[in-house]
């Protein structure tokens, strides 16, 4: 299989731009793993993905991992799954906990940054840190995705280079994880927005 055979029937304007693009993804859980799979399928040239966690059984309800990957670092399991779909993508994975210091170092070359953390405090840290170091780079975050239904309440709020996808109000109930369908809507909107912004920046 050649690259041109694999990437047939692609958008002649957008696809070459996506091939040249580098997207950073902070977190490889319910949001990050699904965003990564979507961007890999679309033909993004390179993904830089970081996550400190390992795959657990409870993740399989919403994250892009398989039963036989339980116990593996999420970034390694995700790289395996992405390569099964798109063997041509360049992947840079980091099994570590992001903080104010390494965010600047790891994501220097990204064209678009995706926030895919689970806790509100980590989301806030990333937004404050990334916006300070890379004020001219788009940052696509997620906030408010718990539960099911209410698809129509999920929207995108924009402030300069910061985009927030979600309903900005749904709280997780204690002991209950996000649910696959609604978190996938948010992940898909983050990925779709990233694809749109890459084209917009180059046109």
């Amino acid at each position, binding site marked *: 299989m050649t690259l041109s055979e694999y990437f047939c029937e692609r958008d002649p304007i957008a696809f070459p731009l996506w091939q040249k693009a580098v997207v950073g993804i902070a977190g490889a859980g319910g949001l990050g793993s699904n965003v990564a799979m979507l961007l890999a399928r679309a033909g993004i040239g390179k993904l830089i993905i970081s996550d400190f966690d390992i795959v657990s059984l409870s993740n399989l309800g919403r994250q892009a991992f398989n039963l036989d990957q339980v116990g593996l670092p999420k970034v390694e399991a995700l790289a395996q799954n992405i390569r099964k779909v798109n063997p041509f993508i360049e992947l840079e994975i980091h099994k570590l906990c992001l903080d104010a210091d390494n965010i600047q170092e790891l994501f220097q070359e990204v064209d678009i940054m995706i926030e895919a953390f689970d806790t509100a405090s980590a989301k806030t840290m990333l937004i404050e840190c990334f*916006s300070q170091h890379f004020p001219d780079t788009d940052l696509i975050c997620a906030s408010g995705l718990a539960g099911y239904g209410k698809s129509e309440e999920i929207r995108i*709020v924009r402030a300069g280079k910061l985009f927030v996808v979600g309903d*900005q109000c749904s709280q997780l109930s204690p002991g209950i994880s996000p649910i696959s369908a609604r978190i996938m809507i948010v992940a898909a909107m983050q990925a779709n927005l990233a694809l749109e912004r890459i084209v917009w920046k180059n046109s």
Partner: protein
Amino acid sequence: MEKQLTINGHIRPWTEGMTVQDALDLMNYTFIMLVVKINGEVVLRADYGSTTIPNGAELLVIHLISGG
């Protein structure tokens, strides 16, 4: 120039020396995890009490909720 600012699309009166914290109090935004932008620029949490808002500014207050 009229003395006002916009907070998440709502027009509110602006006063000289008004800080980000004053604006959050005005709107009863007590949520712990927020990101505040003034005219597109992020204000760090540590600076809410010392950052003053210019007249006519546009504030966006984003509520960050766990889940991902």
